[in-house]
């Protein structure tokens, strides 16, 4: 088996590659280059056009093709046959990731050759850094976009457990476009100036940092696509990858933001926790958290199938859990260090207003993260509750959105109208016991409501097992 060509990759080649298509691409490219050379005979214009074509092919055409590869299986009713095959998750994932884009990569290679050879004739267009950095960056960002497009329909499943067909590839397009535009590459017209940046105290160039970031994202993307495929093929796995990725994003951001005066530990913890918390709210809004899923988890747990129970938890559940643990770790680290880790800075300033000097004392810092843990749990309980009285995913999301607006906009605004510092009773804008106590009370109320709404079947099934 190991010597065999990946069957899924071979099938994709059957679909994508033909003699006609192989000949067509270089002919079209040659015609375009000839036209450009006749109208504007400079190497830089050919290089620029080839680079743009290469970028469009890798980032958008490839993403589009991969994005439809799973969707076509689902709508074409061939997906279950693949799920029941003996193809490994890696074979299926890599077959689609690289097979579906085989023709795109072929065209991209031709464009890259044109760009490289025309670029050499006009060295000024390459900027101050090696042109290889640009190509590696583009390749890595393309791989990241392709893997996210492959993963999206699998990772975000509908309530019935079927992959969502309607996950818009346009969201991935937007993500890629933003990343591409934000990348400090000076892609075609670098001015030769030497710019440096710091990341966790290390000095590097923005171009190299962007390249390594894109490579890291590509690795995470491929890991995510592989794990999403494992899940689709019913391979049990612990839900650590998404929280780990979010933590990576938080840590990466923390290395390049204004937390430079804090210690490495607290910067990593705060970055990871805030990224996890932000993603937790998004997932709570997006991902159904039906009690039906919890019934199954509870049954496995009661049957002492602990690992199977844990593998059944949703992405939102795992992210909330890690975010809560992260918040508690930040608080604990602050306490155990006697405040030395956070003295003189405002690391929680992301969501906490600071007064006067712009710094937070230790108590405020600890209180803010304790509050964060409590409200995450409270809001998660509400999402479970929303599943008991809403009938459609859209209505569920609307209810949760209204709830979040009420809790984080309406209530503070109402309190503020009562008193100039009224919102301080609700949000931990400076340390006070009130927000924590109120968060705890609302959490307990939410859990009580949830238990009272829990269908009798949950209890009945658990008792039976």
């Amino acid at each position: 088996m190991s010597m065999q060509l990946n069957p899924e990759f071979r099938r994709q080649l059957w679909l994508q590659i033909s003699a006609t298509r192989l000949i067509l691409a270089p002919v079209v490219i040659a015609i375009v280059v000839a036209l450009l050379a006749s109208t504007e005979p400079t190497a830089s214009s050919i290089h620029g056009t080839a680079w743009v074509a290469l970028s469009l092919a890798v980032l958008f055409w490839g993403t589009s093709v991969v994005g439809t590869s799973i969707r076509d299986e689902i709508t074409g009713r061939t997906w279950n046959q693949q799920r029941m095959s003996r193809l490994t998750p890696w074979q299926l994932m890599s077959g689609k990731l690289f097979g579906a884009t085989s023709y795109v990569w072929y065209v991209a290679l031709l464009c890259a050759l044109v760009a490289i050879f025309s670029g050499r004739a006009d060295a000024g267009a390459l900027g101050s850094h090696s042109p290889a950095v640009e190509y590696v960056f583009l390749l890595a960002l393309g791989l990241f976009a392709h893997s996210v497009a492959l993963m999206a329909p699998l990772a975000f499943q509908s309530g019935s457990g079927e992959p969502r067909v309607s996950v818009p590839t346009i969201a991935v397009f937007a993500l890629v476009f933003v990343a591409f535009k934000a990348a400090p590459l000076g892609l075609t017209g670098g001015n030769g100036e030497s710019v440096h940046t710091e990341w966790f105290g290390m000095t590097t160039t923005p171009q190299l940092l962007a390249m390594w970031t894109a490579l890291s994202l590509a690795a995470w993307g491929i890991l995510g696509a592989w794990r999403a495929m494992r899940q689709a093929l019913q391979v049990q796995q612990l839900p650590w990858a998404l929280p780990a990725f979010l933590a990576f994003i938080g840590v990466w951001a923390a290395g390049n933001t204004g937390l430079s005066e804090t210690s490495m530990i607290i910067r990593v913890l705060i970055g990871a926790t805030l990224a996890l918390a932000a993603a937790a709210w998004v997932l709570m809004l997006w991902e159904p958290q039906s009690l039906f899923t919890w019934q199954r988890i509870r049954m496995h747990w009661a049957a002492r199938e602990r690992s199977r129970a844990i593998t059944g938890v949703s992405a939102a559940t795992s992210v909330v859990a890690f975010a809560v643990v992260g918040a508690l770790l930040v608080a604990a680290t602050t306490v155990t260090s006697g405040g030395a880790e956070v003295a003189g800075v405002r690391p929680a300033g992301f969501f906490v207003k600071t007064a006067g000097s712009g710094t937070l004392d230790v108590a405020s810092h600890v209180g803010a993260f304790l509050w964060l843990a409590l409200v995450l749990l409270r809001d998660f309980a509400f999402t479970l509750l929303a599943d008991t009285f809403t009938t459609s995913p859209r209505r569920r999301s609307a209810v949760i959105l209204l709830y979040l607006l009420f809790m984080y906009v309406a209530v503070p605004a109402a309190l503020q109208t009562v008193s100039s510092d009224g919102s301080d009773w609700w949000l931990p804008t400076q340390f006070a016991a009130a927000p924590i106590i109120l968060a705890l009370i609302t959490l307990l109320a939410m859990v009580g409501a949830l238990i009272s709404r829990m269908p009798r079947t949950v209890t009945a099934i658990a008792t039976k097992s």
Partner: protein
Amino acid sequence: MAAGPVRNGPRSLQWDASVLRKSPPLLEVRSLRFDYPNHPALSDISFTLAAGSVTALVGPNGAGKSTLMRCIAGLAEPLSGAVYLDGVAITDNPRLAHRDIGYLEDEFGLYDELTASQCLHYAAAARGVTDANLDARTDAVAAQLDITHCLPKRVRELSRGQRQRVAIGQAIISAPKLLVLDEPASGLDPEARASLAGLFRRLQGDGITLLVSSHILTELEAYSTHMLVLRAGRMIEYRALSTVAADAAPLRSERRKRSLDVVLHVPWRDWATLTTAGEQIQAIAPDRVAVTDATHLHIEAEFDDAGQIALLQQLVSGGAQVLSFGETRQTLAASYEQSIADAPAAADSRSPQ
């Protein structure tokens, strides 16, 4: 609920029924329960399928047939209960069990831009057939399904019946032990349906156990050995289907209710007045002899095999000119209607949630 003894009629099957009777269960479903959010789909389903059997899964729309098939195929995880295929728990290890299951959905799909040959090659390779054996296996399955002439054609150029066969070919390319088919005859014309029935008999003859759902009961009747009735997510009945004549299996000593049809050469009114056999029948089943017409008797009573033979001997020795004598073959449609009629309470009640 275990299946009763299986008997096969002479018209339907080419395999040895005694083998089936002795076969251990290939598939075992235990207390299966499946819920959709806010909607129970299957409740407490338990049964076993003997190796080599063909089970007709019948029931009205929404009965849970497709959900049950998806659970058996390991594509849907039940809330509770278990499914075992040849000792492997599908619910715990679907990937392992998939090696021995072929599954065809009611609305199956094919890769329209590939040729039938490429489809079968891909299915074979994806199911673990080595490159060296791909051509041989593809050719063998194509010959088995009578689609050799379709191999070079693109799938989108094939008729629905031919597409159906290609899809079945993909499902059986790895020689599964169990083939699960959800509404396989849906959309086929009568000729294609008849052809499909013949194909299923051949697959059964090759040793594959089949579970087939369909709304067309007459089609299922042509090849089914068992019937499993679902209604509102509950199993109403699972039993072997009776056939026209007993097979050549050894005598069975258990007494059970049997329905016998007797066709006489001499009309009943002439014979009954002068034979002791008539009295014998009345003694065995005084209230259960129906005279359909002058030459047809229908007898319902408890017999063992020896009793049934003795009755025939008495009829003949009493002077009856018997043209035919044997168990009534109840049609699948009649069995289904009877099952539904016998269990209205169970069928109409859903478990309180």
